[in-house]
Structure formats: C-alpha cells, structure tokens
C-alpha cells in the first residue's frame, strides 16, 4: 500500500470509451507459454461524488470473448469455463480506490464471475485529465490484478502427459481504459 499523499479523482462521471480501451487477460499454458484474450463488449465508469469518494465500476459481456482459436472461444463460453448461457456478464465494483501523488492507482473491489463474488485488488496508474483534440476531458487508467480462476468456478484443467497441467490457475486481468468526462 502506497503511503504517498493521495489525490482525488476530479468530481464527475467518466465513462469508458470502448474504442480506445482494452479489457483482456493472460494465462500461462503448457507450463511456459502465455495465452492472451480480450473482451469486445463492456461498459463502465469512474465517478467521484461531491465528497470526493471515487467509484470504479463496470461489466463485461462474456460472449464477446475474443481468442485466436474459435474452438477455444466456444470452450471458454461452455460450463467448463465461463458458462456464459447461465452467467452472461462479469462485473466489478470498487469499494476502495486510492490514487497516489505520482498517479499510482490501487483499487479494491468485488469481482463477480460465473456467480462467484470475491474481493480483488488491482494496481496500476491513472493519468490526466487531459483535453483531447475534440475538446473532451479524458482520463487514462491502467490496472492489473491476478486472480485464481478456480475461486470463480473456472476449474477446467487436464494433466499433461509428461507432468504439470495444461492451464495455469493464476490469470492476469489487464485493463487499459480511456475515460471521457460526461458533460
């Protein structure tokens, strides 16, 4: 936990600009290789009330998952993994958000995947506000968190013939957001 003086998020509501954002994940497979995926459809906002309490929240459409192999995408939507038919959305809502003077960001909150809710801590940075070429106020937010997928009911795995397992349990969530201030 940073001990630096904290700075507030500017009052108002900042919506995710999905054209310029990325919501993805990375997980090791075959012990040494890394596999990455992302979600195309998501929405969220960062808001700060008059009392300065910031809140980051958002949700993701599981069926919008994008991976290189379409057979894998189908497997990821199945009950072995996300079970998107029964649990179509992943959601996150922050409970504690701290911005250090240098822009370091730490967010604690409740992440819900496949009906399982757990508290996670994400770390990263916030930059801006910055006025873009169209005259909009924008904030940049980068966050990463590592979760154990089994805690969220994504338990599929298979032993490899020569030892170890096909898929790591730790999954890195990687979020890169551009947020635009609502008028």
């Amino acid at each position, binding site marked *: 936990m940073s001990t630096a003086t904290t700075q507030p998020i500017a009052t108002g509501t900042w919506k995710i600009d999905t054209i310029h954002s990325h919501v993805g994940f990375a997980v090791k*497979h075959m012990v040494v*290789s890394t596999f990455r995926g992302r979600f195309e459809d998501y929405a969220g906002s960062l808001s700060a009330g008059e009392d300065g309490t910031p809140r980051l929240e958002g949700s993701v459409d599981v069926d919008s998952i994008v991976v290189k*192999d379409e057979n*894998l995408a189908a497997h990821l939507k199945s009950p072995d993994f996300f079970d998107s038919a029964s649990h179509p959305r992943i959601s996150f809502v922050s409970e504690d958000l701290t911005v250090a003077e240098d822009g370091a960001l730490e967010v604690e909150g409740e992440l819900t995947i496949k009906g399982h809710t757990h508290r996670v801590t994400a770390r990263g940075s916030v930059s801006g506000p910055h006025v873009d070429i169209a005259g909009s106020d924008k904030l940049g937010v980068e966050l990463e968190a590592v979760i154990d997928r089994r805690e969220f009911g994504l338990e599929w795995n298979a032993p*490899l*013939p020569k030892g170890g397992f096909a898929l790591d349990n730790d999954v890195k969530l990687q979020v890169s957001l551009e947020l635009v201030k609502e008028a």
Partner: protein
Amino acid sequence: MRILGLVGSLRHDSYNAQLLAGARGLLPAEAELVLFDRLAEIPPFNEDEELSTPPAVAALKAAIARADAVLVATPEYNASIPGVLKNALDWVSRPIAETPLRGKPAAVVGASTGLFGAVWAQAETRKVLSTIGARVVDRELPIGQADEALDANGLPREPEALQELSAMLDELLDLTRPQELAA
C-alpha cells in the same frame, strides 16, 4: 537410411505434413524421409477381414517393413488420436506376431491450431506404438497455434521447439543404429 513419415491428418494443407517437411530438412544426408500418403484408402479395421489385407494396408505394412524408422506427425481430435491414424495402426498391428512395427524405431510429433499442440494425441500415439512393439522415442513436440508457430519450411519458429525436433530426430536415428552389446 529410410524414415517413413505418417501424417495423422488428411487435410490438404495439413500443418503436420508441413512439420514433417520441416523435419526432412533437418535430417543428415544419409537419411531420407518418405511420406506414406494413402491413409485415406485404408478401410475401417474389421477382425473378420484381418487376413485379407486390403491393398492400402499391404502397402503401408510394406513401407514400414522397408523403413529403418517411423516418424508420425499427428493432430489431435477431441483430445485423442485421429481415427484415420489409429485405424491404420490397428491394421498394421495384426497379425500381432508379424507386425512390421515390432522393434521398429518410432517417434511422434504433433501440431495443432489450438493451445496444446496435440500433446495428448502424441502421448496416446506413443502408447499405441509401444503396445504394438515399436521402440518409441520418449519425447514430445507439441506445436500449438501451428498457423503461426511454423515457418514457410515447416520448421518451428521457436528455438526451443526447433532444438527439441532436432534432438528427437537424433534419438530416432540413434535407435536405428546397431546397438553395441555389453561386454
């Protein structure tokens, strides 16, 4: 020295056929790799017809008998051996006392467009070959995401995978050489 190549995929642009082409390029001058390309002609194995030997089965048995070693490249269907390959090996295994695979050096590699590079199909192919009586190299070469992992010559782009393919071929060639008797 003659190595017989078997490809477990019938697909025209098979990545496993490409991988065998790559392996051919790594062989020393005294070794040649000959592909058996008639797996599609082999009928479903039927014990009632075991002794009638369909022409394509006879050709495969003769090709194995003429070869000093067998190199199998297999994709993976539903976490296992493609039926066409297993069917061919079942034919070749009969009659058990006469199978040309008995004592034959063999190695298995595999490529798939998925994450796991046919690792389980390779393990099961090694098991089947060992059961039939082949002397099987105890190595695996799972080439995942083969559409990107193989270069235009069919060789793995990753140095570690290329090294493993070379090591596997070295070991296969070693098995074809007369073994020195212990003093």
